[in-house]
């Protein structure tokens, strides 16, 4: 399980070994300086990236409310969500995590087709909910550093006359750019939910990744 892996990584603190005493003093100092630099550069989520994550969610939620309130037709709204996913989320990494072990056995062409089909499916499945948030506004309520897992930016979707909804965005820069890697609505993780759904679909397709891709693409 990914979560317990993270915990055991943290517990063993793997990586950084202590410099051996036989190393000459000068290169030891140089090494120390390099290590310091590596620590600064390699820190998975610094204060700066918490701010970056918040800025990303601010921009993303601005675009999201614009699409929802645009008054455009259903098809155009879903196309808008799909483009949002492609630009703000790390879809290849999300797809690999959701598909799990079968991802490693897939061909390059299958991987590409799966990413596109899963993006289509997600935009419909979550788009139906987001379409209900008309006239709502999204307020950022905070950002917390979750270490290797990334930064969690918490927001509230405030709807007139109805209860507000807690939507949390998990942001990571481990791919090299700051991207959304998970969406948590009222505590419910998209990754965990969709891993179960995709797993069930793959089982119904008797393990055929091509069958799974066709099914995801057909989501209305």
């Amino acid at each position, binding site marked *: 399980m*990914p979560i317990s892996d*993270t915990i055991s990584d943290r517990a063993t603190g793997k990586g950084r070994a202590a410099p051996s005493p036989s190393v000459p003093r000068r290169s030891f100092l140089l090494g120390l300086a390099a290590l310091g630099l590596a620590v600064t550069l390699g820190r998975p989520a610094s204060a700066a990236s918490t701010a970056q994550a918040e800025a990303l969610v601010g921009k993303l939620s601005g675009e999201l409310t614009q699409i929802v309130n645009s008054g455009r037709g259903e098809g155009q709204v879903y196309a808008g969500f799909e483009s949002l996913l492609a630009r703000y989320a*790390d879809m290849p*990494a999300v797809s690999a995590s959701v598909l799990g072990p079968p991802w490693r056995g897939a061909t390059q062409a299958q991987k590409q087709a799966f990413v596109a089909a899963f993006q289509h499916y997600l935009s419909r499945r979550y788009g139906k909910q987001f379409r209900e948030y008309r006239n709502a506004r999204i307020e950022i309520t905070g950002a917390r550093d*979750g270490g290797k897992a990334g930064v*969690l930016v918490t927001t509230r979707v405030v709807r007139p006359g109805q209860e507000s909804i807690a939507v*949390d965005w998990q942001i990571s820069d481990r791919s090299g750019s700051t991207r959304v890697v998970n969406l948590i609505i009222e*505590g419910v993780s998209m990754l*965990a939910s969709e891993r179960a759904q995709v797993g069930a679909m793959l089982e119904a397709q008797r393990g055929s990744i091509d069958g799974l891709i066709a099914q995801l693409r057909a989501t209305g």
Partner: protein
Amino acid sequence: MRKLAILIGLVAAVAACSRAPGGDTLAYDPNEPFNRQAHAFNRELDAAAFGPVARAYGTTVPQDVRHKAANLRDNWRLPGQVIQYGLQGRGTAAAKSTTRFAVNTLLGLGGLLDIAAEMGLPYEETGFDEVFHSWGIPEGGYLELPVGGPGTERDWTGYAFDQLLDPTWYVLPVAASNALLALGGLDIVNDRYELDPVVEALLHESADSYSAQRIAYLQNKQARLAGGTDIDELEDIYADQ
């Protein structure tokens, strides 16, 4: 005396709530065969009766009336909440519920109007599920009941305690208790209406609606009890890549 016997039975039930091995609650599903049967039944019930009734209620009864019905029901849950907060050792929350109950009962026409919310005392849900959680009792296995819907072993035991230790049943005249029962039913119907798109997606548009509802229920419950998403439970999606 009979109530005492039921209570003792329930205490034994909650004491038997098991803990997921390795702490991975999403993989732990000891009642799965029973749950899946109950789920198939509940899904049909929702498609044939519960969903259509909820949509009819939501579209014919104005929002204002539906909210007043919900206010009234929520108000009369407060005496029970005072006990529940007390057992969690949350004195301030118990005092807030007491004040809320006094304000809305006396000034809000018995709870029809939610004046306390405007004074900064909004309704906050609690129950014996939260009491048991605060005492460190594990949630037990997921348990979906026919008609009842999703829950955990701890939640269902808590629900029974909520009913048995609700002082309003013992104090109010029978007619008022019956009216509260009916309002409680309407409250559930209204929730089903307000969550219609989510429930439709989970129950009727999922590849495996049992696991979709189960994961959504368990994660939502854990977040509610923890007061938000637990940052230490976030997945590192780059761990195996």
